[in-house]
């Protein structure tokens, strides 16, 4: 057992504590970036000039009319950029574009003394456009072969041989929607320039280091001239991993040019129309099962709808490919991926980061095929779980597959699934107009950034002379409770009460070169770094204590703020006193901590390796009720057993599980991104660009009964205090809602009815599924909506589209750098 995962007695980790800012949250005292505006004298306000076309060229821009608006101070255009006119890291996202790539693309920004002045100024800027034909849907892009970036390919075994030995072969198609993050706090940045020309930007960002880098390259400054701070975010969910950079750069540019603080806050409409979302996908697949329903082969092509620029689409797609197996062993696999380039917002990271999309293809496929195989979906899923000794299609051994079974059995038992399914059958037999169903689905989710280099973190821990402790780390707080966990880690490592530890906001001048707080890795990585820094300090204090107590250093113990010898009921010294003594002995009382995840390797170009430290597991059972008149439904009960290792902070972890589940259910059932696909002048416009048209789950979607428990005996070796990551995996527990809706809709038809269900499964989509089940009873032709998935039974199946020879492979810049370093080393 590594010492990293070793948990001491009376540890502060493992205590169920409220969020460290809870008292500030509930009283309105917690500050978010835009709350700082009133505390910053002389702020200017920024407002975008948004293009009305999905694709167009800017041929002329007249800014003078804006200056005629009272209160307008400055119009920012491409000519003002001293450095690189690009908001991304791939140099495909001009900050001030001449080519408009989506409806709402900002072509200029106006700074005003008031927001109203800036708004009126933006309206006064005159822009001439020449409009071009635009691609709006993923199908249009596929037809036009409009792809961008790599076309990753993952293969194991011989998929044709696997299909040939299969008893049952099915092929299908499935297109499903993306999702808007809808963090309650929209994007916001506030930038100042000091007397030295140093930029200080406060930003609602999950990735302060990259925000810093983008500001620096836009302004033509070295990184040490830019500091980025994030107090906290009002939600992130991946939406603030890449998207804040350009906005912060605009604010910083404005501050540099005017010498005044500049605030840029997107209102909800701007946020919805300008910033990226979860990728919708199109999938084609062929699948083979043996006579027992065991998966034999899977051949799939996934097309991610990337929007106008590459952004994070390549790693999102890679993770989708790496998760198409979910919890199931498939001997022969071939999966191709590609990224459609469409005239929409640049789709980006969103909780799960492609994993949910890959897994949805598999779970949809199983849900559709189970009736065709004549198998109970619960049995079909159970029969295909990984077992010890098997590995994923990308070659990573699946460690602890017995935990999937343990969680599955746990849910079946505590959820009384057998009894309830019998009750549901009886209920359905006696009700014509309303039907119920209960579905159970598993989650297996890989933890670590696919890209090995990102799996590192830093921390800075200060112990002051009075014994109080201040910690800094590279992770950002967006509600996920990272800071709470880091306080607990520090208190545990130092053996002091939580009240002695305080946490300072995330800043790039405290911890440099940080990775995004993303990939669920925040606690694993930063926890490792905080623990490392604390251990350095503790080691130095141990020497002081050993001398003071007259015991061997190996026998010194730090518990609850007192330091004593092992097994020694005698002399002890208080933490504060020891710290004071150490200061006078000229012992360094602060330390920089560092952590990198060991044991990872990944070859992006071949899509092979062991990119993940471990897998997080979970199982959910969901019961729904569907109204056959309308397709409206309610979630009656949800039972979840989820694997968080040995929890660092149970209240936080349960909050993540519940919140992730409901957010996933929102994606799959309710949240309906609609883009104008017509040929009207509004083509490409986001039709659901407000909270009134894009509906999030509210109280009415909450499960009536919601039982969540943490998997027991789940200590994870090699991870901080035996814990596991929790941010993303629970989102995918919501597949159980979708599958329950499918089965409830099928219950309106004859026994064994197979039902296709659109995603999101809105009441309307469920209604059409009910109608198609009823049509099977009446032996009528299936009523299917245009654009809906098709399913073909038997034969060799319909082969998914295959890439051209020589299609570009995934080749992240960092891996190229690594390769050249290795080869340079070889030369030396």
């Amino acid at each position, binding site marked *: 057992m590594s010492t990293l995962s070793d948990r001491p007695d009376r540890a502060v980790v493992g205590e169920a504590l*409220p969020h460290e800012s809870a008292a500030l949250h509930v009283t309105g005292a917690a500050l978010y970036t835009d709350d700082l505006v009133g505390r910053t004298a002389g702020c200017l306000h920024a407002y975008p000039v948004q293009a009305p076309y999905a694709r167009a060229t800017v041929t002329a821009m007249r800014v003078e009319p804006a200056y005629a608006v009272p209160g307008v101070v400055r119009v920012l255009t491409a000519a003002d950029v001293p450095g690189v006119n690009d908001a991304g890291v791939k140099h495909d996202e001009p900050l001030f574009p001449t080519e408009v790539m989506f409806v709402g693309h900002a072509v200029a920004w106006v700074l005003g003394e008031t927001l109203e002045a800036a708004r009126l100024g933006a309206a006064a800027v005159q822009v001439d456009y020449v409009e071009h034909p635009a691609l709006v849907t993923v199908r249009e892009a596929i037809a036009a072969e409009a792809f961008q970036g790599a076309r990753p390919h993952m293969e194991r075994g011989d998929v044709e041989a696997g299909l040939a030995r299969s008893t049952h072969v099915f092929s299908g198609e499935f297109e499903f929607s993306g999702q808007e993050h809808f963090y309650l706090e929209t994007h916001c940045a506030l930038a100042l320039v000091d007397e030295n020309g140093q930029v200080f930007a406060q930003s609602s960002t999950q990735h302060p280091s990259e925000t810093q880098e983008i500001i620096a390259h836009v302004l033509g400054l070295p990184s040490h001239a830019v500091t980025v701070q994030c107090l906290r975010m009002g939600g992130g969910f991946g939406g603030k991993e890449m998207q804040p950079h350009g906005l912060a750069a605009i604010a910083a540019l404005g501050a540099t040019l005017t010498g005044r603080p500049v605030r840029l806050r997107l*209102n909800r409409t701007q946020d919805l129309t300008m910033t990226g979302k979860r990728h919708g996908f199109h999938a084609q697949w062929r699948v083979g099962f043996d006579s027992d329903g065991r998966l034999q082969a899977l051949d799939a092509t996934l097309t991610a709808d990337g929007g106008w620029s590459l952004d994070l689409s390549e790693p999102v797609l890679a993770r989708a490919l790496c998760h198409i197996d979910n919890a199931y062993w498939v001997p022969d696999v071939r999966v191709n991926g590609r990224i459609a380039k469409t005239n929409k917002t640049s789709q980006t990271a969103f909780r799960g980061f492609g994993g949910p999309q890959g897994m949805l293809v598999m779970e949809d496929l199983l849900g559709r095929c189970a009736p065709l195989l004549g198998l109970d979906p619960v049995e079909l899923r159970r029969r295909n779980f990984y077992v010890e000794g098997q590995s994923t299609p990308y070659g990573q051994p699946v460690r602890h597959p017995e935990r999937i079974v343990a969680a599955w059995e746990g849910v079946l038992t505590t959820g009384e699934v057998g009894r309830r399914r019998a009750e549901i059958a009886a209920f359905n037999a006696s009700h014509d107009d309303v039907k119920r169903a209960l579905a159970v689905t598993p989650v297996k989710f890989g933890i670590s950034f696919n890209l090995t280099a990102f799996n590192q973190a830093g921390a800075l821990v200060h112990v002051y002379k009075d014994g109080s402790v201040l910690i800094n780390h590279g992770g950002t707080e967006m509600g996920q409770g990272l800071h709470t966990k880091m306080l607990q880690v520090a208190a545990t490592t130092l053996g002091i009460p939580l*009240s002695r530890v305080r946490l300072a906001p995330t800043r790039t001048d405290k911890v440099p070169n940080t990775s995004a707080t993303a990939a669920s890795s925040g606690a694993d990585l930063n926890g490792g770094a905080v623990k490392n820094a604390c251990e350095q300090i503790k080691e130095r204090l141990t020497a002081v204590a050993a001398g003071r107590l007259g015991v061997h250093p190996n026998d010194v113990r730090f518990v609850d703020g007192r330091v004593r010898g092992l097994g020694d009921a005698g002399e002890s010294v208080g933490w504060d006193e020891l710290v004071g003594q150490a200061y006078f002995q000229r012992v360094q009382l602060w330390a920089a901590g560092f952590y990198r995840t060991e044991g990872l390797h990944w070859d992006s170009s071949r899509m092979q390796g062991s990119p993940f430290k471990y897998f997080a597991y979970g199982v959910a059972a969901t019961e729904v009720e569907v109204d056959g*008149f309308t397709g409206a439904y309610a979630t009656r009960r949800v039972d979840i057993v989820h694997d968080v290792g040995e929890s660092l902070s149970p209240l936080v972890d349960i909050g993540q599980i519940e919140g992730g589940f409901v957010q996933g259910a929102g994606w799959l059932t309710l949240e309906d991104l609609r883009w104008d696909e017509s040929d009207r002048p509004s083509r490409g416009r986001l039709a659901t660009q407000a909270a009134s048209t894009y509906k999030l789950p509210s109280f009415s979607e909450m499960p009536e009964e919601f039982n969540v428990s943490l998997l027991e005996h789940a200590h994870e070796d090699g991870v901080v205090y035996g814990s596991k990551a929790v941010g993303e995996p629970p989102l995918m527990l919501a597949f159980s809602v979708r599958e329950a809706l499918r089965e409830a809709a099928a219950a309106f038809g004859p026994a064994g009815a197979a039902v296709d269900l659109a995603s999101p499964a809105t009441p309307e989509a469920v209604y059409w599924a009910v109608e198609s089940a009823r049509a099977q009873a009446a032996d009528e032709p299936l009523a299917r909506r245009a654009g809906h998935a098709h399913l073909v039974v038997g034969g060799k199946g319909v082969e998914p589209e295959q890439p051209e020879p020589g299609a570009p492979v995934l080749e992240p810049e960092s891996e190229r750098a690594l390769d050249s370093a290795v080869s340079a080393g070889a030369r030396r």
Partner: protein
Amino acid sequence: MASLSPATPAAPTAPATTTGAPGITVNGRTVDLTGVPAWTSALDVLRENGLTGAKEGCAEGECGACSVLVARPATDGAAGTTTWTAINACLIPAASLDGQEVVTAEGLGTPEHLHPVQSEMAVRGGSQCGYCTPGFVCSMAAEYYRPGRSDALDDDHDHDDHDEHDHEHDHGPNGFDLHALSGNLCRCTGYRPIRDAAYALGEPGHDDALAQRRDRPAPEPVATRVAAAGGSYARAADAADLFGLLAEHPDAVLVAGSTDWGVDVNLKAARAPFVVGIDRVPELRTLEIGDSSVEIGAALTLSEVEARLSGRVPLLGQLFPQFASRLIRNGATIGGNLGTGSPIGDTPPALLALEAAVVLASAEGERDVPLVDYFTGYRQTVRRPGEIIRAVRIPLPLSPIAAFHKIAKRRFDDISSVAVGFAVTVDGGTVTKARIGLGGVAATPIRAFETEAALEGRAWTKPVVREAAAVMRREGTPMDDHRASAAYRSAMLGSALLKLHSATATRQEVGA
């Protein structure tokens, strides 16, 4: 980390005097409104005054992050008392709060002295990112202080357990009505801990200053005049004042709860040179239940109408919980819903089924217009310049079968794709009268005349209803949009009638 145990809310300091400049008493201190344009929301003014607890999440009254408490006259009309009422601060003009008392999350408690609502939210994990939290706290506090909250316990507990969306699912053991939070969105928690916090609340202590404040009258409305270059605001003191203002400013925008205009201000940059607040005009706030009709004042909020009708008009009783959210119903009025004339407003289908008339008033006098004749086109009505909606009048007796069916993606706080109001009389097994109002299937709310004809004089049986449902599917001219397809809308019209029949048939069986 501050202590998370609750403290008793302290007494707000004395209310602002209304003698001088316009102002709001916020958490006991006066916030000046001099020169604040009518399009400036209460939220913006609060935030500019350092009270940043209330947030902008959506700017259209959907998310509730801006929720604050206002001291309003008792919802049920009880004289001399106050109801702490939660509203969306992002929608109402700041000027409309002149002379009023507001409490924000900061005023309920501090990190050192949490309010009981704040304490429950904090210790149960009710906040994650915390951004929506101050708004949730205010909405929850309004329900915490609702008079009679725990009086009606154990009333509704012996239902058949699949009655659609049981009442008890929306109420806690402490009487907490979850609909109080229907206008608040949280993206982090999944709501369970927030519900647990709400259901764990006890009764306010005797020394709770906000509880005590309920026993005194709410601040009187002020005949506000806030002049501003970007748009002036005036509150009409009474009908005479209102008609005077309208004569002087024929193009004035009339707002009551501002739940519609506020959205236009925030999302469509609507600005108006002159805005008149009519929400406290006494002549528009009457509610009379007579022998031949029920007359509802146009400027009563939907929450007030709901409380004062107290089930007297069952069709409206079904409508209210489905109309937007509690936060919106605390501002929105029937007059506003009819005044904007939207084809997807929720009250018209119900009022059409009830054969309501609109009482239009001007300086010259009043006239009654049957609602069925009121709408003339998309957001067009017969209302003339200078005319206001004073009331709606619902004739009595009411048909015994009444139902309001709303088709939407979400049960709480959504806009209808289709809405259907039914008022049907069945006598001896025969339909003697059928009135059906429809929303969302034409440019205006409409009556389903052909369906009514297909039912009247015929037996209330499944075969007849099936035939009539086929007729109903063809009513109106539904469109495809982001809310629903035309095909689904049409299907829902037929389904609504079948569902109504199914429900009444079940009820008759149960009754027999």
